[in-house]
């Protein structure tokens, strides 16, 4: 066997070294490498190539930066980007709501398991199903407005789905509703892993509820909160297609008021058959996620050190 390995003393691997030939490990990872190369490797190379080509059908001539110039000069593209950025406003709301609920849940420990099952339900339901149900609830003449009118809050009874000024807010509300469920579960898991003596000590010292939350609990949850924020930012920028597709009636509507970047790629690829344009946008989206992967890995490593998120 390869003596080079013996220079690196590692009891962890020695047993594994003894039986199989040096080719065996490669045989085991071969299907994995082939699958990842096909589903990730090939597309990630090709989007860069296509983004510099005028692709008609399956290929086309090189055209330099023309695809990028076209996209960057188009209002619809910038509207889509703006809408994704707008949805980032959901993240602080999700964090605060999840913190509040998880801390209250943690303190009223009786029955928390049952509450947890119910509060996690939004995250189990498929987004298209949620979107269809919510769309009916938020219709102009739907039950939400009926309740608001009955409460005397007529000014709040908006055209939630049909008005281009309001529709994106409604999408954001629905995203907050679903994605907070994940935050509650993550935060609660972290709280349950805390050493209770800290909280008891704070109580004995006469700390008030707010002081305990702010000075004892929240600092202990810093890592999991960071983790949740990074994951949620990635979601807002790259995984809201299903919400928008159903709420905006398959068009990102009304008008282009709920158009997002994913939808722009979808339209360019499927509806206008311009893979080059779709690839250029994919490249931009990919570069943005690359920037986010670095903080993601940093927080995930720290979260794992706290035995969370693994």
């Amino acid at each position, binding site marked *: 066997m390869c003596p080079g*390995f013996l220079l690196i003393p*590692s009891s962890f*691997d020695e047993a*594994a070294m003894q*039986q*199989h030939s040096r080719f065996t*490990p*490669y045989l*085991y*990872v071969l*299907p*994995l490498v082939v*699958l*990842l190369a*096909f*589903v990730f490797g*090939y*597309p*990630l190379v*090709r989007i860069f190539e296509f983004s510099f080509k005028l692709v008609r059908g*399956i290929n086309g001539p090189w055209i330099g930066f023309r695809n990028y110039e076209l996209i960057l000069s188009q209002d619809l593209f910038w509207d889509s980007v703006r809408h994704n950025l707008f949805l980032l406003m959901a993240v602080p709301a999700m964090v605060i709501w999840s913190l509040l609920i998880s801390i*209250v*849940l943690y303190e*009223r420990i009786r029955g928390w398991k049952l509450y*947890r*099952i*119910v*509060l*996690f*339900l939004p995250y*189990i*339901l*498929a*987004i*298209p*199903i949620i979107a*269809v*149900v919510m*769309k*009916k609830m938020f219709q102009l003449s739907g039950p939400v407005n*009926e309740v608001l009118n009955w409460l005397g809050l007529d000014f709040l009874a908006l055209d939630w789905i049909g008005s281009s000024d309001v529709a994106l807010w409604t999408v954001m509300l629905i995203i907050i*509703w679903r994605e907070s469920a994940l935050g*509650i579960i*993550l935060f609660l*898991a972290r709280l349950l892993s805390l050493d209770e003596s800290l909280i008891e000590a704070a109580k004995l010292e006469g700390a*008030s509820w707010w002081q305990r939350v702010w000075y004892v609990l929240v600092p202990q949850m810093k890592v999991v909160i960071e983790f949740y924020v990074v*994951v949620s930012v990635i979601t807002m920028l*790259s*995984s809201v*297609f*299903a919400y928008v*597709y159903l709420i905006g009636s398959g068009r990102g509507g009304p008008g282009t008021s709920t158009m997002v970047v*994913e939808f722009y*790629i*979808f339209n360019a*690829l499927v509806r206008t058959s311009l893979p080059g344009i*779709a690839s250029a946008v994919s490249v931009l*989206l990919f570069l943005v*996620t690359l920037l986010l*992967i670095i903080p993601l890995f940093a927080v995930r490593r720290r979260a794992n050190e706290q035995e969370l998120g693994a």
Partner: protein
Amino acid sequence: MTRGKTGPDSALKHGILLAATFFALVPSIFMILTSLKSQDEYTFNKIGLPHALVLDQFESLISDSSIFDWMGNSAILVIGAVLLSTVVSCLGAYAIALMRFRGRSLLFSISTALMAVPPVVMIVPLFVLYTQLDLISTFRGTIVIYAGLITPFSIYLLTTFFRTLPRELFESARMDGANDLFILWKIVLPLSLPALLTLVVVNALYVWNDLIIAIIFLQDDSKRTLMAGISVFQGRYEALIPLTMAGMVIASAPMLILYILFQKYFIQGLMAGAIK
């Protein structure tokens, strides 16, 4: 538990929890109540309980079987993709966790990094390639894509789990002359059942719930998945809200039933797979 004097008192906390529970449940309650109303009743009674239980909506959906066809298609994709990904990942994670070879940590890092790449980025070249290869609207083509997309998470979860297993077990099996496949199949996998179950739950939920891959790669009516079908369905019955809600009840039933049965694995798994 808390006796804080200046903070919100226990009645307020109780109120907050009840409100959160209400919000979490209200769409499901609306969906179920509305599905039991007649079209006429819904127009004047949108919020209240149904006056008389009407099962017409469900009857008409059951006689028109398209929802069940879509579910069948989704099930084919889930089974195919989860099976393929699990086999590939068990072999790969076994090698990464328990064998030593050149490029091992690089492979693991790349695979883990891919978890953060949004699926939509991969769609364009695969669509162009599949058009060329005539793989659009085929289950096998779409299964490969789904299997690939869920594999980085599977590798991550299984590798970290395999590394926690006691090594004495494999060593003594090796002494007895067992080969790697035997060790993987007879020792590692039986010890990893909780991790495998978690993995299957998360991956199945991802494939079942996905919309964007399904509408792009399965354009044929007969291949439509449940999630793609739902968007067709809501367009078709735009004004028939009780009927639409009955459809949503049927569509959400399989995962709700599984969630109630396996909630521990759902919660653990989705926390671990938070990145999706």
